[in-house]
Structures are given as structure tokens and as C-alpha cells.
């Protein structure tokens, strides 16, 4: 009897996985991209605001690396102190926030696509595991009701 119930519920679970898993997968994957974008931007702002010295050092070192790229060290003519003299303060990291936003917009459709596949898989796997984990309990409940 239990086997028959399992066979009967299999297509229902499959339908449920698609009906709930596809929109859920798209929504949650897109939300995950938003959370990632929010977290990265928040981190940049916190670092700029609360750890200004550390953030400034990172900024000047990034500027130096950018200027020295593809030039021999002897010919580059840039030093850390020169960059620090040029930039007394680190500007608000608008550029980083903007590039984070661009990256998020680019990966959003791919994330949504992966949600279409992974959402139903997650719902089906969870439903199947729950079904197999509690068969005695379900049977027991049925017996009590009767």
C-alpha cells in the first residue's frame, strides 16, 4: 500500500517541483544576486567610512599598481609617496559601486536561468527526502485518525 502511495505521489511531487520550483528558483536566485550586490557595496562603504586609513592605503597601492603596469620598475618613476602627495584623500568609491552594479546586472539573467533548473531540483529533492524520512510517522498518523 505504502509503495502504491509513493508511486501515486511521484508525479504530484514532480508537478509541484516544477510549479513551485521554477518561479521560486528564479525569484530566490535573483534575490541572491541582489544580496550579493548589497553586501559588496556595503563592505566598500564601511571600509571607506570606518577604516579610512586602511582604505586609503589600498587605494594608493591600487593607483600605483595601475600606473606601473607594463612598465619596468626603473622607468616607471612612480613611488608610493608621489601617489599619496597627488591624492591627499581617497574619493568616495563611486567607480567600484558602479562596476559592482554592472556586474550584478550582467549576472542577473544567468542566475535566473540557473534558478529555473536548480529550483525544481531543490524542491523535488527536499520533498523526496521528507517523504522517505518520515514514512512510519505518516503511517502512524493515518492509523490514529482511523
Amino acid at each position, binding site marked *: 500500500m505504502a509503495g502504491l502511495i509513493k508511486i501515486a505521489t511521484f508525479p504530484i511531487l514532480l508537478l509541484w517541483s516544477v510549479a513551485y*520550483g521554477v518561479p*521560486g*528558483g528564479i*525569484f*530566490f*536566485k535573483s*534575490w*541572491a*544576486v541582489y*544580496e*550579493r550586490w548589497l*553586501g559588496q557595496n*556595503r*563592505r566598500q562603504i*564601511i*571600509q571607506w567610512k*570606518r*577604516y579610512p586609513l*586602511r582604505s586609503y592605503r589600498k587605494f594608493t597601492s591600487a593607483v600605483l599598481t595601475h600606473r606601473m603596469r607594463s612598465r619596468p620598475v626603473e622607468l616607471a618613476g612612480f613611488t608610493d609617496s608621489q601617489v599619496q602627495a597627488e591624492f591627499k584623500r581617497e574619493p568616495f568609491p563611486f567607480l567600484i559601486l558602479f562596476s559592482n552594479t554592472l556586474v550584478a546586472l550582467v549576472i542577473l539573467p544567468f*542566475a535566473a536561468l540557473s*534558478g529555473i533548473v*536548480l*529550483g525544481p531540483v*531543490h*524542491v523535488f529533492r527536499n520533498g523526496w527526502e521528507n517523504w522517505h524520512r518520515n514514512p512510519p510517522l505518516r503511517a502512524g498518523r493515518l492509523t490514529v485518525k482511523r
Partner: protein
Amino acid sequence: MAAKPVVLVVEDDRVQSDLVMEIIHETGLYEAVAAYDGEHAFEVLKSYQRGFNFLSNGVSCILLDWQMPKMNGQAFIKKLRTEEGRNPFKRHIPVVIFSAYSDRERIQLAQDPTLGLASGYIVKPFEEEELLTLLKRIVIHKEGEILREILIERESRWMRELRK
């Protein structure tokens, strides 16, 4: 009313676990949940999964004892980061290590690459204020990732000075 951020205390010693839980509860800012070893902690984390497990876990911070039976702190943090790494969009849960180590143990810990996966460590016995300040920075101000970078830099500097 918004739900309080959840702090998971992974500690095998029940007395210490209860003490830490009490300290956290008393602030009224966080909800503390206990786990008594690494495996138990993973079960607790599973119950706080959000959005098909595509979204970041509902646990805001993990306070992790380093010496534990079954699955110790090192094995736990490695497994946790491996699982988190499978989903690139997920935020990593900040981990604070509890350890009662001496200088020799600190050297071993500093050389251990898994330390770089944590946001901070607290030496037992610790001051209540120290724990709450660290929790506030990680959970309320969301500085876990920055603190993790600072921890790596500090430990490598400490190791360089020690070698001199």
C-alpha cells in the same frame, strides 16, 4: 517587529555554552542558539537555510570552540567554507574562534590557513565586553569580512616579528 539576528554558539562544554548564551541573551540584541559539536552545528545551520538554500543563511555569526569532540573547529570551518563556496552568491557566515591557547598554540593557529577563514578569535577566559564588542562589529555593523582581512594581516605581522 524585525527578528533579532541569530548567533550560533558551538561549544561542547555545557557550562561555558550556557554562560556565553546568557551573555548574548542579556544584551537583548541577538537570539542565541547552541550546538554541542560540529555535526550538530551543521544540523542547526540547515534549519536556518533561506530561499531554497540559494540565499545567505539566517545565522548572522558563529562562535566556534576550537577543541571539540566528533568534528573539531578546524574541520567544521573547512567544511562550512567548502559548502558556502559552492554557491558564489551566498554571503559567508562570519566565524569567531574560541580558544584557550598558549603562545605555542597561537603559533600553530597562526600558521594554520584555516584561521584566515575566521573573522576573529577570543582567548579563554575572555571579558564579556570583548565578546560583545566583537559581536557588535560583526553582526550589527556587518564588518565580518573586513575583520577577517585584518586578522590575517595581524597574524602574519605577529609571525614575522616572532621570527626576528
